[in-house]
């Protein structure tokens, strides 16, 4: 219990809901629900809760009466002393969501933020999607959470009206208090909670949501991270830090090649290591990989060190299987072949082939971006107990419901008994997409069940680098055709990579995803052809922060810069001209069924005016066009991803000065690139927490420096060649530039922030390097050229 309190997880040993619960169903999308006091005390362990507001989102299980009637997604509860508890149902991995969403609720409810507590939800379908991925927490929950807050505020307003015997419009609610109009009388929320808890819920149409101007916390700059103090004192609990009574520690020797198997092993030396308890074989894996265990041999020990030592002493003969044929460098030739006549045309406008034939000039360039590992500072970790009461897991997961499903798969627990598998979500020491793939949860549950002991599975750094779900390497070919006046007449973009789809379906061959920055490029060109080639897949491929936007944006925005240079036009002016008139781009006209990050086009159009606006802002802030010292250069790129528009200008210098980094190769005599400064202009629509928007952009720049300078996972014989930070390097503090961020004030629907800062960085960087040095780099990472 003390541990549960420490990480703010709600114990879930009793059913949350009973038939006593009152429900009001609205015509529209959400059902606001008020639970009785007794039920909530039972469910949430809050001894003196009186008012509990829940929301249910009809997108989930709308047809399932039981769930839709009684399953709230988000709780607001208030104790008798007025303390408000807001449930965070999304995972915190550094993006600040545990601060930002509760802030939105508290603001709408007119809470005093100092009297708000945040509790982390367990994994449960009743919350709707908890998959904290795709930069969508705010995009999906902004209005729904405002409605929840407004419902609670209205109940409190109605309660005060009853006490004062006036109409509700004579009562205003401000900062945890009700105030009577034309009077000095006030009532604290603590004085209203009992009465409010007995009132009928207001109908949704009667709710008055606060305007932007009325927000007191939302959009303000000085809001502190709610976990800040725990973090700086070392008290914050991550997946790696979970400690249970009698818990044992496990590290696993996984097959070096994907789908490899243990042929034989000798654990005699392992078992001699003091502290090693036993060695357990995990079931071997056959395709598809999905989020299942990789197999191998687990060392169970009294501490992590003993487990690591035991693993080193293990003698294993592996049967590598067919993926041992894979060599990343050699496979580039297959990629090139795959782009000769790619079978998948994803977007087609006019007639590219004709435009090319009729052209006065055609330029063609190929781009290659290496595979990338997530390299979260906290490697994956999960702790599990299996008992007659079910399965309890504590883990750093972006997607507790997938983790739950994975655990159920291991234990063969049917769907109707999902509540017996409780996924408690800790803080995540970085996510970037890795922790939405809960293979490590399956391992912990399997081992806890086999050994009948509480087991913590810890991935070492070597495990994390060698057994990841990688961003695929990619090969791309782009061409543009021009008429005699230099006007662009055609655009061709072919792309091939190992598809993420192969992780889920071994037959998947089509490179993907054109949805992410390839098919949706915004340039207004009369003839467009965009294609994908096919490829086999030999490693687990997954999504890494911004996914294939990483490589697509690099190629598209590098190539556009090359077009500008070829036409002797300023890069910024060329971008603006190529985007053309103000319009909402209709990709369906070009035969491209674009999914738009799952959003509708009314709220989230592809709006060329917003592209141009961020370009103009970033150009102004960066002093675009100014004269720079010798060896310096500015580069620009613009990209829309996750429905957010980001323009980036990077300032670099090229010199032979020593960079303050343990990464720099002293042996190379070449000039080195320094990223001096980065400018971002970001239009994400409405935002909640500007400080966290800025921090995500700062982080995106530095994440992208790591990608662009060093990011390359390679395999030989199907075995990943990198293993730790000496051969999979990350940017260090001496390489971190100052990052200037301007957030566009916007009334548009809230979009996404976690990922959109990544895609435009690498092309802006390489465009800047071109302007500083005259050299164009079309392959990432840049360390292969000796310039970083």
């Amino acid at each position, binding site marked *: 219990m003390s541990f549960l309190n420490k990480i703010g997880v709600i114990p879930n040993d009793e059913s949350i809901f009973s038939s006593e619960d009152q429900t009001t169903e609205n015509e529209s999308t959400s059902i606001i629900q008020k639970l009785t006091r007794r039920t909530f005390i039972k469910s949430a362990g809050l001894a003196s809760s009186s008012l509990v507001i829940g929301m249910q989102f009809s997108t989930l299980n709308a047809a399932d009466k039981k769930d839709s009637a009684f399953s709230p997604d988000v709780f607001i509860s208030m104790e008798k002393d007025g303390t408000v508890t807001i449930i965070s149902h999304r995972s915190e991995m*550094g993006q600040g969501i545990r601060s930002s969403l509760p802030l939105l609720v508290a603001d709408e409810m007119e809470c005093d933020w100092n009297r708000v507590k945040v509790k982390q939800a367990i994994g449960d379908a009743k919350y709707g999607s908890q998959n904290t991925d795709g930069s969508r927490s705010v995009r999906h929950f902004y209005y729904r959470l405002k409605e929840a807050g407004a419902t609670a505020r209205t109940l409190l307003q109605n309660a005060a009206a009853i006490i004062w015997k006036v109409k509700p419009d004579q009562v205003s609610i401000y900062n945890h208090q009700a105030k009577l109009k034309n009077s000095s009388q006030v009532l604290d929320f603590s004085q209203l909670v009992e009465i409010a808890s007995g009132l009928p819920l207001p109908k949704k149409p009667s709710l008055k949501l606060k305007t932007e101007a009325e927000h007191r916390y939302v959009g303000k700059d000085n809001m502190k991270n709610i976990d800040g103090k725990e973090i*700086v004192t070392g008290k914050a609990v991550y997946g*790696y830090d979970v400690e249970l009574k009698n818990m044992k520690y496990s590290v696993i020797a996984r097959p070096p090649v994907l789908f490899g198997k243990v042929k034989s092993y000798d654990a005699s030396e392992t078992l001699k290591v003091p502290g090693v308890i036993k060695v357990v074989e995990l079931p071997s894996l056959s395709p598809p990989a999905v989020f299942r265990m990789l197999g191998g041999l687990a060392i169970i020990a009294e*501490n992590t060190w003993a487990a690591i030592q035991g693993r080193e002493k293990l003698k294993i003969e592996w049967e590598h299987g067919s993926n041992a044929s894979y060599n990343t460098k050699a496979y580039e030739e297959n990629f090139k072949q795959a782009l000769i006549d790619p079978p998948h045309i994803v977007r087609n406008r006019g007639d590219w082939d004709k435009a090319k034939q009729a052209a006065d000039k055609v330029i063609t360039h190929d781009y290659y971006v290496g595979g990338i590992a997530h390299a979260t*500072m*906290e490697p994956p970790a999960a702790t599990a107990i299996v008992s007659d009461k079910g399965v309890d897991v504590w883990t750093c997961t972006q997607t507790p419901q997938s983790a739950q499903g994975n655990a159920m798969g291991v234990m063969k627990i049917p769907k109707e008994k999902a509540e017996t598998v409780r996924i408690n979500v800790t803080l995540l020491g970085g996510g970037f997409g890795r922790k939405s793939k809960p293979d490590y949860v399956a391992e912990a549950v399997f081992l806890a069940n086999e050994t009948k002991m509480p087991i913590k599975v810890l991935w070492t750094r070597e495990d994390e680098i060698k057994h990841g779900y990688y961003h695929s390497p990619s090969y791309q070919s782009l061409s543009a055709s021009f008429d005699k006046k230099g006007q662009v007449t055609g655009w061709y973009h072919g792309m091939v990579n190992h598809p993420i789809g192969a992780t889920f379906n071994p037959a998947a061959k089509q490179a993907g995803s054109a949805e992410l920055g390839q098919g949706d490029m915004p340039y207004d060109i009369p003839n467009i052809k965009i294609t994908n080639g096919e490829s086999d897949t030999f490693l687990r491929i997954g999504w890494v922060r911004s996914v294939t936007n990483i490589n697509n944006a690099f190629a598209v925005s590098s190539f556009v810069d090359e077009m500008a240079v070829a036409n002797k036009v300023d890069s910024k002016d060329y971008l603006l001209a190529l985007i053309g008139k103000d319009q909402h781009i209709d990709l369906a006209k070009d035969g491209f069924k674009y999914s738009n990050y799952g959003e509708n086009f009314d709220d989230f159009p592809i709006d060329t005016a917003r592209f141009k606006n961020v370009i103009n802002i970033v150009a102004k802030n960066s002093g675009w066009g100014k004269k720079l010292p010798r060896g310096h250069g500015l580069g620009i790129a613009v990209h829309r991803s996750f429905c957010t528009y980001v323009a980036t200008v990077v300032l670099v210098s090229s010199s032979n000065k020593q960079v303050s980094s*343990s990464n720099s190769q002293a042996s190379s005599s070449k000039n080195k690139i320094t990223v001096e400064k980065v400018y971002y202009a970001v239009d994400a629509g409405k935002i909640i927490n500007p400080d966290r928007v800025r921090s995500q952009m700062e982080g*995106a720049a530095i994440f992208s420096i790591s990608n662009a300078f060093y990011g390359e996972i390679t395999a030989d014989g199907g075995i990943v060649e990198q293993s730790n930070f000496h051969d999979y390097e990350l940017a260090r*503090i001496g390489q971190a530039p100052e990052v200037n961020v301007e957030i566009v004030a916007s009334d548009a629907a809230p979009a996404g922030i976690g990922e959109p800062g990544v895609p435009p960085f690498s092309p802006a960087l390489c465009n800047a390097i071109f302007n500083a040095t005259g050299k164009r780099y079309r392959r990432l990472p840049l360390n292969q050229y000796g310039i970083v």
Partner: protein
Amino acid sequence: MIELSINGSKHKLDVSPEMPLLWALRDVIKLTGSKYGCGKGLCGSCTVHIDGQATRSCVLPVSAAVGKKITTIEGLSENADHPVQKAWLDLNVAQCGYCQTGQIMSAASLLNENQNPTDDDINTAMAGNLCRCGTYPRIRSAIHQAAKLAREVK
């Protein structure tokens, strides 16, 4: 038996003398504020102070810490009131926060030796601490602010 002095308290441990201090702290003494990131002294997440010096606990055998004064993040201050912690909170430095205890211990050690570090001093002293979230610009600002805070206190 190995006897260690950690945050002013004596601890007797029945562990192999080769066990890195990090695992003794985390798994045996249950002080989990010092983090694992690489196990090879490459990332700095495990940084503690040994007699005031920033040290990577993941590659330091417990036997080498005997008789020394070990300070972990849990012992850096009474109530998050070390100037470095204050500056970290004031500037909202942390994103995921995982590497930050190591960053803070390295920064505190730097300020012990250099009360007014330049950007270059900071870049050199902090080069061993990785942050994947990319909080480096704020770390630099926070160290300058902490230095100012510490000078004002004195």
